């Protein structure tokens, strides 16, 4: 297969048309959603393509950092909209995502695993931020709901003179695990059930499958670390919101 051009994309509209036809024939009533979704994703992706071209050509470190920041802002916004029980989750989530991403990317650049070029940093940063976004929302929801539904347990420990940290240790661990569960699970089945995105992309673009595998392994480890850091940081920050400085449950 050659790299696809506009002609191929236009032909692939037939696939969308078939989906619409199915919806109409079986009266599923999602024609409108299909149409809007298809146009929307087309526009978004083309815009991103041009933006990436622009960024790759400039090769400015600042522009890379600003791009990562914008991705983190959007990710933190999306994640905090999924958090219900904490008053201002946005700042906590944003900080956790930025911390997790920058430490991970920093270590990878330091170890020369990747070169600090837009072409590498931005797609990898996107994967990190996407995964961190999910992890932080899950972890934050878990710690708040666990502690609010186990007030008696936590206060029993507090009443015996335990600190807020000791009194919430059990829930702390569960919350961090919840954030990491997705990457841990996918590491178990990776390659056996489905080929992950980065690897699929490389193979489709004509790379040697073994090269694609090596990249994929790096990507998994990278996500693993980013998610671990983000989850720990977000739970550290959140659990402090649930207690007063005098080790009292709010």
């Amino acid at each position, binding site marked *: 297969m050659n790299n696809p051009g506009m002609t191929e994309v236009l032909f692939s509209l037939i696939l969308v048309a078939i989906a619409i036809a199915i919806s109409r024939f079986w009266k599923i009533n999602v024609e409108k959603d299909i149409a809007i979704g298809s146009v929307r994703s087309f526009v978004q992706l083309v815009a991103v393509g041009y933006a990436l071209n622009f960024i790759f050509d400039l090769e400015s470190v600042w522009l890379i950092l600003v791009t990562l920041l914008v991705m983190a802002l959007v990710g933190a916004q999306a994640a905090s909209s999924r958090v219900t029980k904490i008053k201002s989750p946005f700042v906590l989530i944003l900080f956790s995502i930025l911390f997790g991403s920058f430490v991970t990317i920093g270590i990878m650049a330091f170890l020369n695993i990747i070169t600090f070029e837009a072409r590498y940093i931005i797609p990898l940063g996107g994967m990190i931020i996407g995964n961190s976004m999910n992890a932080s929302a899950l972890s934050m929801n878990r710690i708040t709901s666990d502690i609010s539904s186990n007030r*008696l*347990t936590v*206060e*029993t420990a*507090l009443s*015996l*003179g335990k*600190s807020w940290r000791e009194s919430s240790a059990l829930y702390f661990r569960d919350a961090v695990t919840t954030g990491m569960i997705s990457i841990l699970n996918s590491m178990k089945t990776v390659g056996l059930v489905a080929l992950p995105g980065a690897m699929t992309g490389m193979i489709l673009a004509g790379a040697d499958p073994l090269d694609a595998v090596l990249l994929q392994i790096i990507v998994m480890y990278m996500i693993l670390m980013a998610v671990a850091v983000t989850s720990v940081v977000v739970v550290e920050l959140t659990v402090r919101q649930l207690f007063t400085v005098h080790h009292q449950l709010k």
Partner: protein
Amino acid sequence: MGSPSLVVSHVSKIVDDKKILEDISYTFYPKNIYTILGPSGSGKSSLLRLLNRLDESSSGEIIFDGQTIDSYVVCELRKKIGYLFQTPYLFEKTVKDNFLFADNTVSNSQMLELLAQVHLSQKMLESSVEKLSVGEKQRVAFARMLLTKPKILLLDEPTSALDPSITEAFEQFIQKITIKENLTTIIVTHSPEQAMRFDQTGILIADGKIAESSDIKSLLENPQSDAGKRYKARELS
């Protein structure tokens, strides 16, 4: 009477503009047992929570052993002011784990002695807490609290789930350690009969205020306040 162990002065608690406790003042002395009576929802548990600083009072001052409770490291304070909740909670898995949670230096023989003191079988030490009855849990929680070596005991309806026969033995144990260990014991109870058995000071709380306090006999038999009269009419008729 010696110096007081706990002084509560003009303490109020307001939650969301609602007065839960209003201008509470009282002075507690060691070797005494104080029974707190009052209708449910009157603020008895809320007061105990302020005393070991699980909650913060909105105004007023609480003095423990001559110093305001704010001046203590709060986790150390809570060990000194033991609090047995109305609903006892035991951690996983065994009774022994619960004792070690409170004090990880306690020896096996100390734990066995403790079980005997609260009238539980010594075989229970290795039992899983899920198998215990509510009354047994209440006594394990009480024993666990003693392991932090408290000087003040806050007991929120400690015998609500006990058999009458065990209740009286348990009351005697509380009386014994209060004297022997020089403790100040504050017991919330819904039972005027139990208050009479302790036969010391009674404090009646109604609508977040101390309605009256005196020796328990006159408080129950000859109340002075309106709240006291209503309490007598309802509880002792």
